[in-house]
């Protein structure tokens, strides 16, 4: 943006014609050094200035304060029955909260030894085995997998099934089949008491 001088003939600016001005670089060695220094210094200051103007422009596109302020959400778990799922919104994304049946927990634990794409034990994916909390976004390309409602397909492993490109997740939300690379992400959350959690 700034026009920086490619060649600064400092002590020749006054009253010299074009022919004389353009032929000078190799005339005296100390002049060349001083000119080089001036060019470098000017370019450096210009670069710092341009960068310090560019950073606010770039940073303004990062999440703003009022978006960051929405980073936690509290959920009351009391109304959720065994075998029921709910979906809550956290940072604009769906979070799946499932109160798993004993059969589902048993199936998930049994598969800890299976050939998993991303090796993870069911116990490491939950804080209390009954409650599975995951970001409901397929790790392939961001669709929301089906399986939250009882009428929806749950895939070959009884968990979730992403309709976009056919990824199958098990009852622990681990990827078992299809193009997705990773298990469904478990967000940071903590139990505020027995029946409520804070996500984020």
């Amino acid at each position, binding site marked *: *943006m*700034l*026009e*920086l*001088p*490619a*060649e*600064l*003939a400092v002590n020749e*600016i*006054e*009253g*010299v*014609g*074009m*022919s004389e*001005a*353009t032929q000078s670089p190799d005339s005296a060695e100390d002049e060349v050094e001083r000119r080089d220094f001036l060019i470098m210094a*000017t370019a450096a200051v210009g670069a710092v*200035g341009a960068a310090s103007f560019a*950073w*606010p*422009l770039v*940073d*303004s*596109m*990062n999440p*703003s*304060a*009022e*978006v960051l302020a929405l980073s936690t959400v509290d959920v009351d778990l009391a109304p959720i029955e065994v075998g029921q799922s709910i979906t809550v919104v956290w940072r604009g994304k769906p979070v799946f909260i499932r109160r798993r049946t004993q059969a589902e927990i048993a199936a998930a634990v049994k598969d800890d030894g299976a050939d998993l794409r991303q090796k993870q034990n069911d116990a490491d994916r939950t804080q209390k085995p009954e409650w599975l909390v995951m970001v409901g976004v397929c790790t392939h390309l961001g669709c929301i997998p089906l399986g939250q409602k009882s009428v929806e397909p749950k895939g070959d492993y009884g968990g979730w099934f992403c309709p976009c490109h056919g990824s199958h997740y098990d009852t622990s939300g681990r990827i078992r089949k299809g193009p997705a690379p990773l298990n469904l992400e478990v967000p940071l959350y903590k139990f505020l008491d027995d029946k409520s959690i804070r996500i984020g």
Partner: protein
Amino acid sequence: MSSESQWNNPVIKWVDDRLPVFTYMDHEYNQFPMPKNLNYFWNFGALAMIVLVVMVVTGIMLAMQYTPHVDHAFVSVERIMRDVNYGWLLRYIHMNGGSMFFIVVYIHIFRGLYYGSYKSPRELLWMLGVVILLLMMATAFLGYVLPWGQMSFWGATVITNLFSAIPIVGEPIVTWLWGGFSVDNATLNRFFSLHYLLPFVLFAVVGLHVVALHVTGSSNPDGVEIKGPQDSVPFNPYFTAKDSVGIGFFLIFFAFFVFFAPNFFGEVDNYIEANPMQTPAHIVPEWYFLPFYAILRAITFDVFFIPAKLMGVILMFGATLVLFILPWLDTAKVRSARYRPVYKWLFWVFLIDCVFLGYIGATTPEGWRVLGGQLGTAYYFLHFLVIMPIVGKLETPLPVPASISEAVSGRSSNASATDMEKS
């Protein structure tokens, strides 16, 4: 100048043989011959270009955060100020950038008026400049509406109502401009769209302005054309360096307002959300419109069959449009005021008249100021329509130097930069 021998880098040579951008840049910004007697007033075109780029860049970022809806616009601007990372900086740069743009361009224009830069063969260059000024004014007005404060709203109402002065079709035109029966959501939406569009039109006209400039070359303080290589220096390094110095000082000036007095040019009332049910007691436009605002209000009487309201509007637009025919109104054979002993003083009288009209525009039209505004308006047009043609004929100019070299060698070495003040 053939590209065959000039470029050693094979990639540059390959591109340049097919699309001679490097040859063009070398020709227009490296070797381009500039008059060697230019003073710092010749920095202001480059400064205007810098401001335009800054305005477009910050404006694009702000548009990502702004909501053009009557219910959200004001709040979204406050959100930019408080929540968006560096939003306060972007908005204050953009807000003050508008004022900086007009400061720079007004100095650029008055430099042209003093040194006769509009005279043949640079008439079209000048006229393109007037188009740029009109586009700037439109863009600035549209942008001022977007924060949806009280001044935004009532400024939009007053300025769009100017068109109601047009006989017969005036009212339908205003309704069409508004997209309704008052300034409302439809108006805000289209103003946002046009505020985003016009700067790119501006860029295009600036491009033409620069092309026209590089045909005739820059004018200069002595008003005699370059007659040979002894009169000129290459653009680089002489004017890349000189422009860089000017840009450095200008950016410090700009930054002072952004960081230490960001609301200096603004109106406090614009931090009150727009209220269509209540007009502020004292509404004024931004400072750069004040002289034109004074002209608009000056006409309090009907002129023959033309009602006062219409006449005010005609003169307000006429005040800018008269610049289009200035190259033909000025009959002087000599270009620069440096060699025009009478016009030189009339230039300063005209400048004072413009400042005076600005003062009138900023204050309430009561008492002596009504007559003051009328006299100021009369002199404004008298200057262009009567004084310029007559003085050009009657004035005896001082002897003009035969060439730039002669002008430079005939003066003491420290005279060139400050002659506008001294002479």
